[in-house]
Every structure is written in structure tokens, then in C-alpha cells.
């Protein structure tokens, strides 16, 4: 018997400056859709309606409007940058739809019409900066893409570093898609900062990583690079130059959980042995499963019912247990730190002992009390070394 179908919109750019991540999100979301449609556990099938805004910001509004008005979707999975999410937000709020947003982001938003599946700022920026302050340096050179993700990440970093009596040595910004990175790399080689925090996205980041590696190698410098967004497919794009980057993320392909090993095996069977899932792709996969399970439990696609059914429901995903905190629609998940290696993978060296509540407004962060870790993050897990 054919199962009834529920239309779900998928919005991710397959072209433009962050097309690589858009393609990863689409591949992962469709893998989850296909799996769900084959499972008896679900008494419905998901009918995916894919839209490609081509990385053009105004197109997000257009394709979202089309999905709601012409296809009649109640649930949409997608968007990557915060700028794209902000384009979609007014429409989903006005028409009372639900956007399942997979990417980690900078926080300071909490819409009833968005489920924030990716990491909140207390999951990614805080563990990374604290690790740097405790182990590497109190002086950081920042380079990033000129948009809200970098602005807010740099703001939090600056407050933490300043409270620890450290210093932001520089804050250099490039427009999205900009490839002229030589002047920044030259400055880094000249000033020799102890660490460089890279919040560039897409092609700008890959260009920077390659130029940075070439210049610092030629100068005989060993400057660690930090990232809150770098993932395995990007390591492959950037090439061997990307090795040695200290990265904060909720997901790495190397996570040793049975759920992840099975996920990676299915991924490679579908996309080839040499391909790798990514944090944002895996998050899109999680988003589809969280949606499908909520739809199943709610017995309706009504967004109020689905949101209630989704809250607090634990899902043993590839990245480990995740669930939605009903008080703020963000996900409880496990932060991790890793360093990229020459094989295009990450060696995980820390992870939270237990999943961490999302804190999108950083209300639990007492910057004035820094750098004492216990005082700054009451919800902070004890970090443990992962062998």
C-alpha cells in the first residue's frame, strides 16, 4: 500500500560562494528522506520539494514564498548562513510554518517558527576560545567573512579574551566569496601572532587556508589555526594545507559511536568511499529525522502539534544523543574539539561528558568572572579526553 505523502521544502544553495556546504546539506537531507520513506516505522512518506536560491540572498525569500504558497509545505529544512535564515524568517512567522535550520549559528534569536538543530554559541565558540586561553595563548588574530557569524563570534571571543587579560591582535574581514587573501596572510607572517582564528566561510576560507599554509611554511612559522565551522569535505577541498586546524564542532566523521559508524557506512555506500559527511550535512540529516519522528508522534503536520511532539524527544543520532529544548527550540547536543590531520579527517581530543543545554543568548556566560571556568559556565560539562 502506498503511504500518504507529506510535502517538505528543502532550501539550500547548490551554486554561489557556499555551494559546497549547500550540496552537503542537500545530500544528507535526501539520504534521510530516502531512509525514512523506506522504513515501516513511519506511516507516511516525505515528499521533498527542493529549491536552489543559488547563494543569492533575495532568492531565499522568493523560493520560500513559492514553497508555502504554491506547494503548500508546512515544514522547511534548510538555509545555511544567518543572512539567508533572516530572509526566510518573516515568511515562516507570518504564515506560521516551521523552519528546521541545520547550521551552527551565532545565537541571539529564538523564533517559535524555527527549530535550531545546529550548535548554539555555547556549544562551539566558548569551548574553543577557552581551550585556546587555557592552553595556547591569550592573544588571537581574527580573520573572517564580513557578516553576522563573524561579527558575533569575534564579539564573544573579544569579551572572553579581554576578561582573561588577553588581546585581540587584529580583526580582518573579507566579503563573502572574496579570494584576495594575500594582504592578510602577509600581515600574519609579518606580525607572527600566536594563533589565528578563521571564521571565513566557503571559498574564501579555502583560499585563505592554502595561502596561509604556503606563506607560514615558507617563513618557517608554526601558527595554529582555529575554526568553528571547518568540516571534512572542506578539508578535501582545501587540500593538505588544512591539516592542523583546531576545530570546534558537534560532529566529526571520526566519532566512535555505533550510530555514526553505521551512518558513515551508509553515506559511503551512497556517495563513494572517498566522500565524507559534514557537520552541517549531518545536522540536516538529524533535522529530517527529528521532523519525521515528531510528525509520526503528532499524527499530523500541524506545526504546533509537531513542535510539541518534537520537544524533549531523545534521538540517538550519528553525533550522539540530541533533543530539542522546548523552552527555546534549540538542540541539546555534545560539543567536541578536534584537530584536522593530513588524511582529511579530525582527531578528536575533547568532548563534553554529557549533552549540553543550548544557551542561545549566552545568559549563563558570566564574562566578568572569566577566566575561572566553573564560574563562567554553570551548565558546562566536565571535558574529558577522547582516546
Amino acid at each position: 500500500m502506498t503511504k500518504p505523502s507529506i510535502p517538505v521544502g528543502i532550501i539550500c544553495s547548490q551554486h554561489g560562494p557556499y555551494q559546497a556546504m549547500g550540496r552537503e546539506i542537500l545530500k544528507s537531507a535526501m539520504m534521510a528522506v530516502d531512509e525514512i520513506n523506506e522504513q515501516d516505522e513511519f506511516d507516511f512518506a516525505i515528499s521533498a520539494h527542493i529549491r536552489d536560491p543559488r547563494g543569492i540572498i533575495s532568492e531565499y525569500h522568493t523560493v520560500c514564498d513559492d514553497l508555502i504558497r504554491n506547494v503548500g509545505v508546512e515544514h522547511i529544512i534548510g538555509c545555511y548562513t544567518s543572512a539567508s535564515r533572516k530572509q526566510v524568517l518573516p515568511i515562516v512567522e507570518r504564515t506560521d510554518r516551521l523552519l528546521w535550520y541545520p547550521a551552527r549559528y551565532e545565537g541571539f534569536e529564538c523564533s517559535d517558527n524555527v527549530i535550531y538543530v545546529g550548535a548554539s554559541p555555547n556549544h562551539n565558540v566558548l569551548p574553543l576560545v577557552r581551550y585556546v586561553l587555557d592552553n595556547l595563548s591569550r592573544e588571537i588574530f581574527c580573520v573572517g567573512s564580513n557578516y553576522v557569524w563573524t561579527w558575533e563570534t569575534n564579539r564573544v571571543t573579544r569579551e572572553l579574551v579581554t576578561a582573561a587579560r588577553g588581546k585581540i591582535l587584529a580583526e580582518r574581514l573579507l566579503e563573502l566569496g572574496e579570494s584576495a587573501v594575500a594582504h592578510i596572510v602577509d600581515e600574519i607572517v609579518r606580525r607572527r601572532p600566536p594563533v589565528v582564528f578563521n571564521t571565513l566561510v566557503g571559498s574564501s576560507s579555502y583560499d585563505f587556508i592554502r595561502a596561509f599554509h604556503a606563506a607560514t611554511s615558507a617563513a618557517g612559522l608554526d601558527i595554529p589555526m582555529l575554526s568553528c565551522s571547518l568540516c571534512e569535505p572542506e578539508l578535501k577541498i582545501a587540500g593538505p594545507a588544512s591539516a592542523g586546524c583546531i576545530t570546534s564542532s558537534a560532529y566529526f566523521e571520526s566519532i566512535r559511536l555505533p550510530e555514526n559508524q553505521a551512518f558513515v557506512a551508509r553515506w559511503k555506500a551512497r556517495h563513494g568511499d572517498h566522500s565524507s559527511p559534514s557537520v552541517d550535512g549531518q545536522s540536516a540529516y538529524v533535522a529530517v529525522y527529528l521532523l519525521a519522528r515528531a510528525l509520526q508522534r503528532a499524527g499530523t503536520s500541524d506545526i504546533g502539534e509537531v513542535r510539541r511532539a518534537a520537544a524533549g524527544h531523545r534521538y540517538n543520532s550519528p553525533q550522539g544523543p540530541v533533543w530539542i529544548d522546548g523552552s527555546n527550540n534549540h538542540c541539546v547536543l555534545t560539543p567536541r574539539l578536534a584537530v584536522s590531520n593530513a588524511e582529511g579527517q579530525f582527531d578528536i581530543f575533547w568532548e563534553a561528558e554529557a549533552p549540553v543545554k543550548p544557551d542561545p543568548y549566552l545568559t549563563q556566560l558570566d564574562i566578568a568572572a572569566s577566566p575561572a571556568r566553573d564560574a563562567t559556565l554553570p551548565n558546562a560539562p566536565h571535558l574529558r579526553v577522547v582516546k
Partner: protein
Amino acid sequence: MSKPSSFSLRGRKALVAIKDERDATIVRRQFERLGIDIAIWEPSWEPGANIDCRPDVTLIDDEFLPLTSAAQRAALGRSPVIALLGTETPSRLKLVLDLDPASFLVKPLRSAGIYAALVLAFERSERTNELKQQVLKLEQRLRSRRIVLAAVLQVMHTHALAEPAAFALIRRSAMEQRKTIEELSAEITAKGSLPRAAG
């Protein structure tokens, strides 16, 4: 003690006066997320009521305007005010302006915008208080100019000095005696001469 950051709202207290239950629910949920404690505007706060509430910020629905009692106005005067606007008509805006709001939100409310309105209100209030202090200080100095002028004339007369030299002498003496020019000027006019430095 360092002043609290306007971006960190945890532990602050808000007095909330909202008529519509849907708007009130949105504010309660968002305040809970931000770690803000809420006190509800009581209907019993009618004229003459003794309102014992020390909020850090007050949100007031324009439907409560105009405020009818001095007690209500006094309660609002204790903290920065965020006005909730239902209409942008000048007559309504005039009532809102009487509250000297530090920020505003447009109804129907949504979660987006509340955090920004709070941060702007706290920061605006902080800067306004700094400006008020500065104005007070300047007014005080302005008032004392009359005394300084009298002291300069006194010294010009007793020491046979021109005005710039008389003023320079007062300033140098004030520095030697670790007093302000205004304090020393008050002593000169009281004693009729330039007091000697102790020791």
C-alpha cells in the same frame, strides 16, 4: 565594582504591564530564556497605592496610558521604560513620549526584537544617567563662577594684579593646598584675602 554589561540580562528585574495575553505570554517566555525576573503590574495600583517595586526596566502597554495616578508614574520613574505600541498615531505617541521611553516594541509582539529593545533601553538609560551627572556637575561649576569672579576681583585689588595674573595665583594656590578653585575662591571671598597654605 564594574557596571553590568548591557548585553547580559540575567538576574535583572522587569515590571511588566501588558493587556493582551498573547503578547504577555511571548514576553514571559522570552524573559525566561534571558534569565529576567518578572513583576506584574497590579491592577490594584490605583491612585494612592504604595507601590513597593524596584525594577531594572519597565515594559508598559500603551493601552494603559495615560497613567492616572502619581503612584503609577512614580513606579515608572524608577527604571528605563520600554513602550509597547499598538498604533503610531500622534495622539498615542504623545502619551508615550510623556513616559520618556528608552526603547519601544511594536505590537503584536514576536520574540525577535525583545532582546534588542532591552539592551537599547539599558544602554540608553546608562548613557542618560551619565549625561545627567555631567549636567549636574557643570551646573554646579556654573553657579560657582560668580564666587570665582568675586575672588579674582578681590585678589586683583589686594595684590595689585591684572586679571590673568590674579586668576593664575588663585589656581596655583588651590593646587598647592589641594583644593578646587571654587573652594579656594569661597574662602577668599569669606576672609577677604588669599589664605596661606598650611605647613
